């Protein structure tokens, strides 16, 4: 049997997870609807003044995206853990980190990307300008993969534990705060007319750092959880 190349493995895993996600479309849609509802609750809660909403919008959208990504984290490994697929994955001859990276990417495509696509519509609800919506999308595009990656570590650490859902939020949310600060900061910079690039560069730096380390740490955490 010839060994698969890493890229081949990566694409097979991504395709498998995407197919699985499409078979259970309700899960994907639930996360998205959760995101929309949380964001829509804020104008109802604090009142509909356009000025205040415009200033609040980046923070609200980012916090809602963070919560929505927490919500879907439980599904990242649990299904594979329950039917035993995960144990087989630990046994493959290729690097587990690559497998994990593929799972994270697929997870982001079904849970993070829809949020990014939905965000402009919500931005319009909050009366944001076209320019700040553009920056919001870029910031979300850079930030949500980082959220998925940090979340994957938490999901792997709490795999199969009782009360995993609340615990994973407790572990992951503090680590996500930098992403939140710079992500919302980028949009606020547009609104106040200062430079956006520093915030976006920091988001990019966080993404690159997460890309380098978290698949490896998640793989370690999976091995600890599965032994």
């Amino acid at each position, binding site marked *: 049997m010839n060994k698969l190349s890493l890229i081949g493995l990566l694409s097979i895993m991504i395709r498998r997870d995407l197919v699985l996600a499409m078979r259970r479309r309700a899960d994907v849609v639930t996360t998205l609807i959760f995101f929309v509802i949380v964001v829509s609750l804020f104008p109802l809660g604090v009142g509909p003044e356009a000025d205040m909403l415009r200033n609040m919008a980046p923070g609200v959208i980012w916090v809602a995206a963070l919560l929505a990504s927490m919500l879907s984290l439980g599904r990242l490994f649990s299904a594979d853990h329950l039917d035993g697929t995960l144990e087989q994955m630990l046994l493959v001859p290729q690097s587990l980190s690559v497998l994990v990276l593929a799972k994270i990417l697929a997870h982001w495509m079904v849970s993070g990307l829809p949020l990014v696509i939905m965000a402009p519509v919500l931005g319009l609800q909050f009366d944001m300008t076209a320019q700040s919506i553009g920056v919001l999308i870029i910031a979300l595009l850079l930030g949500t993969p980082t959220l998925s990656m940090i979340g994957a570590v938490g999901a792997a650490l*709490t795999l199969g*534990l*009782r009360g995993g859902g609340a615990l994973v939020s*407790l572990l992951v949310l503090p680590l996500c705060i930098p992403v939140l600060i710079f992500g919302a900061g980028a949009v606020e910079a547009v609104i106040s007319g200062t430079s956006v690039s520093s915030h976006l560069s920091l988001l990019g730096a966080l993404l690159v750092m997460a890309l380098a380390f978290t698949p490896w740490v998640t793989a370690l955490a999976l091995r*600890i959880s599965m032994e």
Partner: protein
Amino acid sequence: MVPWFACSAAIMFVAGLYISFFVAPTDVQQSEAYRIMFIHVPVSILSMFIYLVMAGYAALGLIFNTRLSSMMASALAPTGALLAFLSLWTGALWGKPMWGAWWVWDARLTSELILLFLYLGFIALHASIDDPRRADRASALLAILGSVNVPIIYFSVQWWNTLHQGASVKLTGTSMHVAMQQGMYTMMLAVWLYAITISLIRVRSIILERESKAQWVSELMEIKR
């Protein structure tokens, strides 16, 4: 060793509190309110340092699979969380007269709050895994991941323009009165000794709990009685 550390911690606390309340002069700008510094500064420094020590022990336990270092890590966590909480609390008490607010969303305060959350996450993760070995290793990974935050707290006053004042004591000279310095160092030593005492007591009970099936435990004087 515990009684020694406990006694010297108590002596240092008394001496430190005496110096800080009766010997140290009143500050020009902040009048009497600055005296909370004698608790706030040692507690904050220790809360950061204990996290590093905890992450170090956790890493040792993860890499070399030594059981005692993982036990040390889990013994240090509650003390660290307590100190981080005290640091925020005394900071709030200090902030009210100085800045006119209990809490401001400043970089150092926020990152210290994150530190408290990291401690709580460590404790919660450790508590929710039944198998102690797996709990040690999983929480060790979390501790190492979280240690990124410590340098951020430490340098936050230099990196961002914040309300929180920078360090007055530096390696090269200081801007502080001698008696204030003495008081702060004594209190620092006292908090150090307190942290060591409590962690040693806690690690002792963790060892006894985990090894409760071992023969040497059942041969202990205290257990036989």
